[in-house]
């Protein structure tokens, strides 16, 4: 098993190199540091001195790939590619445009993100599976039909509507929870309640409907017919057989997002003023802070690849029929 995991982890390395190359191409070749400086300085007719000064301050005043003025290994390390891209592999993200360490920001901001995303993930999974199982249990009845109709309608509503509607209803009209903000410790509960509810509700439509098809597919299989032929009650068939087998694709499909929970939810965090990584990213995009965006791209892909690894492992744990070669 360990050999299998190691092999899968090694497989991640070329992908990370690919991600790194793509970000390098996007951020430094298509869009040169001169462009960045011009955009940050804001004025259309900026002087070359101002650009050079900005580049020197932010460490962009180096050759791209090969420094012919340096000696020894410095020829390759004293370049933008090494300083800004290769260093990401060591999680050395450098500084944001406002001079603060990105690494420090990430390590403090990931916890509020996790505090929001973990409940959304767990409660969401429970709610979606319950709804899907209900619809599958009452399949081909009016309950199932209107359940699917409701799901399609909920899928068609913009996620922004859930946020704005929730804020208006629960915070403004009913005064149940604060509109936005965040505090540590036990106070976090009252700030997080609404974002969690919004996060769960906005996923009901698509997820319940998807899980319902998974359950229905499972119910068409031979072992279900056998269970019924044995004379098992429908509830026993559903809970003991269909639920268990239907959970295999659901769980393995859900596992991939677990590491990414640290990345937070972009829109929700910025609407509710939660100081997580999602709002950090949005602020960086709006301030056009490329070093932060670059770091988040890299971090996001690392977490996603970790999720893929977890998925592979979870397949073998949940379903004993799957073996590693």
């Amino acid at each position, binding site marked *: 098993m360990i050999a299998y995991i190691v092999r899968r982890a090694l497989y991640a390395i*070329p*992908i990370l190199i*690919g*991600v790194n190359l*793509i*970000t390098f191409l*996007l*951020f430094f070749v*298509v*869009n040169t540091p001169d*462009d*960045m400086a011009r*955009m940050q300085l804001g004025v259309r007719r900026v002087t070359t001195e101002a650009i050079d000064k900005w580049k020197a301050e932010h460490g962009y005043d180096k050759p791209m790939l090969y420094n012919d003025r340096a000696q020894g290994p410095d020829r390759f390390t004293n370049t933008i590619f090494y300083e800004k891209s290769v260093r990401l592999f060591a999680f050395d993200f450098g500084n944001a445009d406002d001079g603060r360490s990105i690494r420090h920001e990430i390590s403090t901001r990931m916890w509020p993100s996790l505090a929001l995303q973990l409940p959304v993930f767990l409660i969401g999974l429970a709610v979606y599976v319950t709804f899907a199982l209900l619809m599958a249990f009452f399949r081909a009845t009016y309950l199932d039909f209107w359940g699917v109709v409701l799901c*399609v*309608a909920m*899928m*068609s*509503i*913009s*996620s*922004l*509507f859930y946020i*704005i509607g929730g*804020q*208006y209803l629960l915070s*403004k009209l009913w005064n149940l929870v604060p509109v936005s903000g965040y505090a540590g410790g036990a106070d976090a509960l009252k700030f997080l309640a609404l974002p969690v509810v919004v996060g769960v509700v906005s996923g009901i439509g698509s997820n319940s409907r998807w899980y319902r098809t998974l359950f229905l597919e499972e119910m068409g299989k031979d072992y279900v017919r056998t269970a019924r032929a044995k004379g098992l009650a429908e509830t026993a068939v559903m809970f003991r057989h269909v639920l268990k087998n239907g959970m295999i694709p659901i769980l393995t499909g859900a596992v991939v997002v677990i590491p*990414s929970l640290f*990345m937070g939810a*972009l*829109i929700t965090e910025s609407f509710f003023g939660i100081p997580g990584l999602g709002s950090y*990213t*949005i602020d960086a*995009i*709006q301030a*056009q802070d*490329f070093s932060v*965006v*670059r770091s*988040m*791209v890299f971090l*996001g*892909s690392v977490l*996603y*690849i970790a999720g*893929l690894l977890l998925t592979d492992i979870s397949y073998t744990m949940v379903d004993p029929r799957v073996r590693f070669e």
Partner: protein
Amino acid sequence: MPVILWTDALVFVLVAAIAAYFVYVSRQPHLLIPWRRVTQSAYGMSALVVLVAFIVVGFLDSLHYRPALERKAGQGAAYSTEVLSVFDAVASPLRARRERTYSAPFATHAFARETLEFPGPDGKVQQKREFPKLAWGGAHLKDEADRGRDVLLRTTQGLGLALLLWGAIAAAVTLSHGRRAGRTAREAWRAIWRAETRTPWRAILLTVGALVALAGPALMLCTHYHILGTDKVGRDVFYLALKSIRTGLVIGTLTTLVLLPLAVVLGIMAGYFRGWIDDAIQYVYTTINSIPGVLLIAAAVLLVQVQLDRHAEFFPTAAQRADMRLLCLCAILGLTSWTGLARLLRGESLKLRELEYIQAAQAFGVRNARIITRHILPNLMHIVLISLVLDFSGLVLAEAVLSYVGVGVDPSMNSFGTMINAARMEMSREPVVWWALAAAFIFMFVLVLAANLFADAVRDAFDPRVKVGALPV
């Protein structure tokens, strides 16, 4: 002077391609069968009616021109720098009647107090904090107390108009159905209302009825009131919402023009050739997949923006610049979202290449390119079609989110995202400015719901796992 923006040109290409596809399909009986099944789905056809209404608005809004300015003596024709569309010309009463700032739906007075000056009794100018009267909304009323009656009257007129139109459509449908089925008009009418016709005419007529019942009164009222209020700079929200439709449709459809060739070519190549080609293509899409979608899009859009700023001289009008950004957004969305379809097609081609008829073709020495185009591609078309229709609604929703993040369409371009973004800040006002948000969300909901339902109908009709025998073929 007609102006063809880049997205317009591509929209025309797309419309021509779809028309060509349907002409081709109508000559191939085996391809016609699933489409006939789509036309037999009641909710699918209702959704199609709504979609067609949206598409007509969007298409009219894609025919652009620059209005001619008044010609001065001795000079050639001069054209305004403002780019308008045929839809703008149709809706010019809506576009021209701008207020100063916010006003509620059907309001006759502005939303916020302003300091107004009155001539006082002694001839001096007096100042008063008042809600100023709107320049256009309800300006025709002699007495403002008549507003309720006036609205009611116009609504009734609109409904009457709608009823006339609907009656004409229903009569035409009944007669044509009766003639085709060999029934008298009365029998045909009864068959339609008992839903005994193969094409679900009852559902179609009901949807058309609902549409005209909304459109009729809206048409009668919108020339004298702001039926959905006005926004911060006094533009009519109803007009903005209608203008936003084109942006949503363009993003939902043009993205597929970029996505389709990539996904089809790479997906089939990976599945058919296997070996190192498969490894390379799989590597590319895993890498792209592993970058968080919004971030990749955000990074790419930021870069495009820098390039657009640098080459400002290429765009003589603001509309052309905004249009280029929209096109780039479509391209970026396409480049980041082809992976899902490519993976599906790879899996299916892997299965197909092992089938006997493909192996027979290989044994006969048929070239690979020919095997792919003649034998593999036609058998994958249902997957391509289903996933394209399914993607559409997701893309319309994504536009709103991206515009909120600031990496969507140009802020000067009308779209659901920019509407929501502009209206969001006003939620904290007291009383709430709700109409712009509500309009954007409702229009978007109807469009996306119709697209989702139509996609479902298409999927049910094309999915080979659905049994065919039970349906009249």
